């Protein structure tokens, strides 16, 4: 049993292109300059597109983007836990809920809604967000002794218990969570700037009115980018190597001087802090959070994101998050154009049902064609692009040392 997870997580699989260069098995050092520069170009272009998008896209796309950012941050945490440390968690939605409700309760003010009183500390939102992340980290730390003793599917099921406990608490602690009807999420403010829509004044940027979605979009971009860079630094350094050693063979890691159970605890701590941060973003994206959101289905969705993205890879987690959180809504939006669907109200396959089928098929096809997930597909595309670039260049400047491919 002890090796079942390492079977699931192949030891020397290509985990995107992130480990390359620092891993002993990665590409040799002299070849790094070119691809790195190419990647900077791609990243810069992507960033410009992301920053310009709120000027063009309507509320649907922006709202979808907010959910994708929140999902990406949380998925990075799970990717670290599952892909790097080799620990299966089905309880990720619990830590996301701790972050979301932690932020809401800390930043919200005490007030009476109907007959029930809702408690809140009315802290500055930025402080509340930081504390909510720490709170989620604390929850992860409390769970880590269990994580250190269980492995593979056993750990998965144990963490599943967190989701059930979490659901029960969320429904039955109305003073903190608002119970079934949920709780309004206070707008985020940073240095006096409010990430929300106010009726008194509207912010115009280049003639475009900036409401809640547009403002939160930039917050989402910034937080996701920071979370992504943190992840890469962590994974490329000493802690990342130690985690992978623990994942691949615990005895080997221990012999090489890695404190195994402490690193397993670290992994849970950092992963649940990522989940908490994702939870804060998710709460802001929703505007009102209800307990039913943070159930089993969400936990499975996060698992799907990291598997679809490609285990352990930062870019893969982000791509997987975008895939899982956006594709169903996008398909639903455009499903009506498909021919041969049943008209409203009658029997047969409606556009909404067709969209669900399409989503399921897309997941299966992606994993069949590219078992390494979106990250592997991405690096294959990048390699193809690089070959294309070479060909173009070699046609223009023939170089004897580098034959054209």
């Amino acid at each position, binding site marked *: 049993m002890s090796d079942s997870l390492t079977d699931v997580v192949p030891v020397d699989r290509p985990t995107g292109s992130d480990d390359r260069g620092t891993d002993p098995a990665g590409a040799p050092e002299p070849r790094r300059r070119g691809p790195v520069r190419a990647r900077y170009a791609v990243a810069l272009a992507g960033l410009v597109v992301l920053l310009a998008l709120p000027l063009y896209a309507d509320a649907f796309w922006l709202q979808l983007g907010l959910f994708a950012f929140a999902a990406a941050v949380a998925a990075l945490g799970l990717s670290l836990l599952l892909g790097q440390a080799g620990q299966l968690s089905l309880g990720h939605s619990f830590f996301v809920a701790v972050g979301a409700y932690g932020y809401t309760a800390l930043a919200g003010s005490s007030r009476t809604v109907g007959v029930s009183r809702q408690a809140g500390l009315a802290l500055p939102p930025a402080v509340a967000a930081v504390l909510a992340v720490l709170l989620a980290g604390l929850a992860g730390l409390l769970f880590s002794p269990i994580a250190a003793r269980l492995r593979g599917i056993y750990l998965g099921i144990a963490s599943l218990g967190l989701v059930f406990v979490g659901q029960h608490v969320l429904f039955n602690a109305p003073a903190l969570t608002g119970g079934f009807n949920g709780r309004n999420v206070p707008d985020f403010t940073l240095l006096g700037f409010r990430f929300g829509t106010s009726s008194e004044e509207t912010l115009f940027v280049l003639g475009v009115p900036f409401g809640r979605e547009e403002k939160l979009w930039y917050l989402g971009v910034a937080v996701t980018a920071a979370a992504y860079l943190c992840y890469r630094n962590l994974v490329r350094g000493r802690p990342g190597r130690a985690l992978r050693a623990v994942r691949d063979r615990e005895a080997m890691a221990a012999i090489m001087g890695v404190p195994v159970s402490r690193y397993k605890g670290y992994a849970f701590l950092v992963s649940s802090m990522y989940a908490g941060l994702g939870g804060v973003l998710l709460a802001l994206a929703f505007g009102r959070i209800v307990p039913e959101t943070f159930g089993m289905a969400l936990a499975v969705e996060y698992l799907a994101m990291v598997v679809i993205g490609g285990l352990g890879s930062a870019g893969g987690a982000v791509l997987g998050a975008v895939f899982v959180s956006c594709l169903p809504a996008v398909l*639903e939006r455009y499903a009506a154009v498909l021919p041969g669907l049943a008209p409203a109200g009658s029997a047969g396959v409606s556009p909404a049902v067709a969209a669900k089928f399409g989503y399921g098929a897309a997941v299966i096809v992606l994993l069949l064609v590219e078992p390494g997930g979106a990250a592997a597909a991405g690096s294959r595309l990048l390699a193809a692009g690089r070959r294309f670039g070479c060909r173009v260049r070699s046609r223009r400047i023939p170089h004897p040392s580098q034959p054209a491919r």
Partner: protein
Amino acid sequence: MSWSSTSPRRIAALAALAALLVAGGCTTKKADTANAGSSGKLATGPGVTDQAIKLGVLSDRTGPFAAAGKGIEQGRLLFWDERNAQGGVCGRKVEFVVKDHGYNTQNAVTAYAQLKTGVLALDELLGSPVIAALQPNVESDKMLTLAASWSSSLLGNPYVVITGTTYDVEMINGVDWLSRNKGLSKGDKIGHIFLEGDFGENAVAGSRAATKELGLQLVEHKIKPTDADLTAQVTALRAAGAKAVLLTTTPPQTASAVAVAEASGFDATFLASFPSFSPALLKSPARAALEKKLLLATSIAPVSATSAGPAAVRTALAARYPDQPKTSFVIYGYAQGQIMAKVLDAACKNGALTRDGLLTAFQSLADVQTDGLVAPLNYSKPGQIPARQTYILRPDAGAVGGLSQVQDLFESTLATSYQPTS
């Protein structure tokens, strides 16, 4: 294979070009004032053109309430297709933008963001967690919303329209009817098995008020939606000597409770909230027990009712969807159409087909009659329960829609004076 063709200079040039495009204001998303215009004397809001009024529908087509969503859609189409053929409202056809959320709050919030700028109001919002999640949005967007829920907790939001009585009033009228017709006397015990969450808590508030007023004792059992077998609760109520049992449960749980009681010879009458029964149960082995023991308290007429409204819907339904199940949700959807038509008519008369105009028009409706589809509704007092009359129905496999009428619309004196605590 280095990639020096992407020189820093080239990257800088590309970035500058992109920045120029952005800053140059090539945006297609300028502040849109064309939507909120006016034509002639009529002020119009989002989704209103000279030819059409667009309304949003945020429903469940792929989740656990897909059947309910489909029934409501059939009712809506029956009403509006006829109405549009007669010229629509305010000289405009009423059209619908339908979105599925599959009972998932995230999908619902996204779909709402897509809908909100293009529709005048929401003609249907289905699913309790979805309604809870979207309440602040509905309020900040001033979006009049016909919610497919009957919870008193929605009364605080002026933009949410409840079609019928609330769950607590259903139970008050139900307990009152049981006490008069099933020979309950002071001190007798009544059981109430209810779901945790908004639906159950709201219903139990009503049964608490009614039993207190009538001098009955209430024995409460709270359950979870995932509980499949209610043997423990029914046995406990039987041991306690309950004369009647109220059910605010899921339909499978209702079947379980009634079947267990029948098998163990527990002869109490069971009375359920409207969403706790589904005609599909009459195809299950519990059918005989359900027909014998169960009653329903609801403000929505059964498809088999004899009054003019339900009869007309029944005929139209049989003609247009002959092979589809005929549920009370069709009646409900049709009634929603009538209410929305009245709101739009009133707004048109006031010369304001805007979001604000719709709220004003809605709050001016003091007496909405739907030919017996649902109890008469009064929306002129914000924050108050719009209707306090209910039918008493019983499951009947022989009737269209699986329900037949036991007691016509009535309002108990308790229900008249009742005020929800929230």
